[in-house]
């Protein structure tokens, strides 16, 4: 191959060459139902756990999106679908323009090096019988990233990047503390120079003083290598610190998505408002005493048989008839702000009448209204459109 020019060689690792500005990852209507089997010999499927139900979002190169929610809301499942550790029930995962949701194991192989994962528990995600050198070197060997002789120097380089002593490649995970183990996990994820890192609760198993070390390391890594992050966490403060964009999930659906300022300063969904008010805040308590919390009643309902209409209505203090009858669409209400609520509004200023009635072609109780035609433009698309539904004027506003 003497005709290969230098330019070709340089372009080779760039993959199919998605122009910058196009999303790196675009998830559309992603759904995962886990079958629930009956007991006995013939294990029939009796129900489905609707773990992820129609999730759409997009992520650009080098950006980070935070996925927040309580346990059982489907945030981890979403992460594992994107890394294809689970097979999606339906929906599309476009990675650099290629739909990877239906690819076979063999077809996935080259893409796996582009999407890596950091796991929550640094104790169970590292093989205790392998040395650190083997753990971090395995992806290099599997994907033949470097010749065998260069594996060790590369491993040492990676250990140095994550702040571990490169001489420790011969040690076993048990010889490291929790924070150091998490660094090993990060080194392993970085080994293949991925474009997308799915970080599933990367700091929640660590001590407070160590959490900050790891968060800073992830930030450095992102800046240095331009890696896009899907940052899954239940800790709102950590997500706010790490991610310019945030999506809030509840029972398998995204209920609100937007940029950091909007979600944290002007949340329009009652669940987001409750989540934010529930997070204890040191400075607030030290200076101004206790804030009033929004008290949510009860627990998250079972995803096997989720409530009709809006899934949050069983715990929502504003729920009305329409909430049980009509599922609120995830409508765009600002430049970078989508919310799925019939009564979307800032806390204390929520409207009395459903803002979505006109859009869905129903009356205020959620019954079909013959006089009003539903607006068709409510598809659950990833990313943000140039026009949005203005809550004040109740009409679609061009940007």
């Amino acid at each position, binding site marked *: 191959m003497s005709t290969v020019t230098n330019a070709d060689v340089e372009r080779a690792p760039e993959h199919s060459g998605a122009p910058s500005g196009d999303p790196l990852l675009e998830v559309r209507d992603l759904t995962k139902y886990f079958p629930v089997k009956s007991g006995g010999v013939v294990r029939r499927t009796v129900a489905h756990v609707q773990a992820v139900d129609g999730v759409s979002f997009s992520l650009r190169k080098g950006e980070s999106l935070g996925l927040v929610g*309580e346990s059982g809301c489907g945030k981890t499942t979403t992460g594992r679908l994107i890394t294809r550790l689970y097979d999606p029930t339906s929906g599309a995962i476009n990675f650099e323009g290629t739909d990877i949701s239906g690819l076979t194991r063999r077809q996935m192989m080259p893409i796996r090096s582009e999407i890596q994962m950091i796991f929550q528990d640094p104790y169970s995600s590292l093989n205790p019988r392998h040395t650190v050198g083997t753990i971090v070197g395995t992806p290099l060997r599997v994907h033949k990233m470097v010749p065998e002789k260069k594996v060790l120097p590369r491993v040492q380089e990676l250990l140095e990047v994550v702040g571990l002593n490169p001489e420790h490649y011969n040690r076993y995970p048990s010889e490291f503390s929790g924070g150091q183990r998490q660094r090993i996990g990060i080194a392993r994820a970085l080994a293949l120079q991925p474009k997308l890192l799915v970080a599933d609760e990367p700091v929640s198993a660590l001590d407070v003083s160590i959490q900050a070390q790891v968060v800073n390391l992830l930030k450095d890594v992102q800046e240095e290598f331009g890696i896009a992050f899907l940052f899954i966490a239940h800790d709102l403060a950590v997500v706010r610190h790490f991610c310019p964009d945030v999506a809030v999930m509840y029972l398998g659906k995204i209920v609100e998505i937007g940029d950091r300022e909007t979600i944290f300063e002007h949340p329009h969904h009652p669940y987001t408002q409750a989540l934010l008010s529930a997070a204890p805040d040191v400075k607030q308590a*030290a*200076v101004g005493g206790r804030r009033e919390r929004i008290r949510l009643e009860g627990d998250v309902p079972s995803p096997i048989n989720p409530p009709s209409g809006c899934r949050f209505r069983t715990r929502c203090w504003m729920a009305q008839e329409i909430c049980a009858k009509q599922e609120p669409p995830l409508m765009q209400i600002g430049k970078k702000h989508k919310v799925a609520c019939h009564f979307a509004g800032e806390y204390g200023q929520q409207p009395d009448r459903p803002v979505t009635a006109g859009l869905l072609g129903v009356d205020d109780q959620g019954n079909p209204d013959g006089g009003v035609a539903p607006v068709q433009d409510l598809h659950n698309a990833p990313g943000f459109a140039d026009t949005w539904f203005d809550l004040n004027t109740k009409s679609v506003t061009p940007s």
Partner: protein
Amino acid sequence: MSTEISERPDGMAAPADPNEPFLVVENLTVKFPTHDGLVQAVSDLSYSVERGKTLGIVGESGSGKSVSSMAVLGLHDPKHTRLSGSIHVDGFEVIGAAEDRMRKIRGNSVAMIFQDALTALHPFYSIGDQISEGYRIHHKVSKGEAKKRAIEMLDRVGIPQPNRRVDDYPHQFSGGMRQRAMIAMALVNDPQLLIADEPTTALDVTVQAQILDLLQDLQREFNSAVIIITHDLGVVAEMADQTMVMYAGRAVEYGATREILTHPEMPYSWGLLASIPEVGGDANARLIPIPGTPPSLLNPPTGCAFHPRCPHVDKVPGDLCRTTLPDLVPGERGENHVKRCHLPNPGEIYKEEILPEIAPDLIDPSTGEMIPELAAVDPNDI
């Protein structure tokens, strides 16, 4: 300690001195002999909790916060533990007390809520059986009455349809409900001291908020003393009247919660405050982690246990930090705020170096002084 007082093991009668705090721990030291040597998990720890008040104990894993409170209930195996010092529960000396005496206190006047409800509840017994067991041991009542009490308690902690759920098993409850069931179990005998060991760590934020509210309501109702052990400063900030920061088995700072959070004087407390991101803070500010890792208690550092991780060692004259263990003594802000540190001018360093980094919004930009709300915190106000 007169024998007369020690004879009241149940702690139900009025104490000899009503002004004495319900729990007084003095010079408590807990050591565990292991194959690798003696682990000194808690060293020379003293604190007290009054009725109706909440003490928050903060620290990293291995700082001795759980070990010290398990000693209050006498939960350490005497064969494998060396305890010294004294623990007075309502005037009764716990250390060295006979096991049958301890059984009268445990679950009765002193109760504990554990971190992981799934492992703390027995999977083979129904929730109702487990709640009423403690009630029947300490009260002479029939099974039926005990069950009625269990239903009442489940209702009190906010479990829907308590008369049906009382016969359920732990696996039929969700995480938040299990934690409530465990709180019901701890409260069934109206304890005067409740020790909550990381009560919300395994829970989601909205459920955590429910449980914290519940604990506060119950405390107001029964005027109990509460110890809340956590690594989450946010929980302490909202719950505790007093806060004790622990590091490597010792108290390193102790005082009123608002005082500790607004005018900390010990570099480890600064580090804890600096390393947590805030929901309301500047999102682009870099977190300032504490370098290094917590020390091994098998072979703790000489002098101040925090000195290998402390960025302010140079500011102390001589080699004091490396050679001499600082005493837990009152700092610049009065008798009720004690700290274990050699720094001569922590207040100044905090104001000049720490606060501008961790909370620039608490500094008045025009004068360079703390905002009035912060400066006005009274160190003696609990």
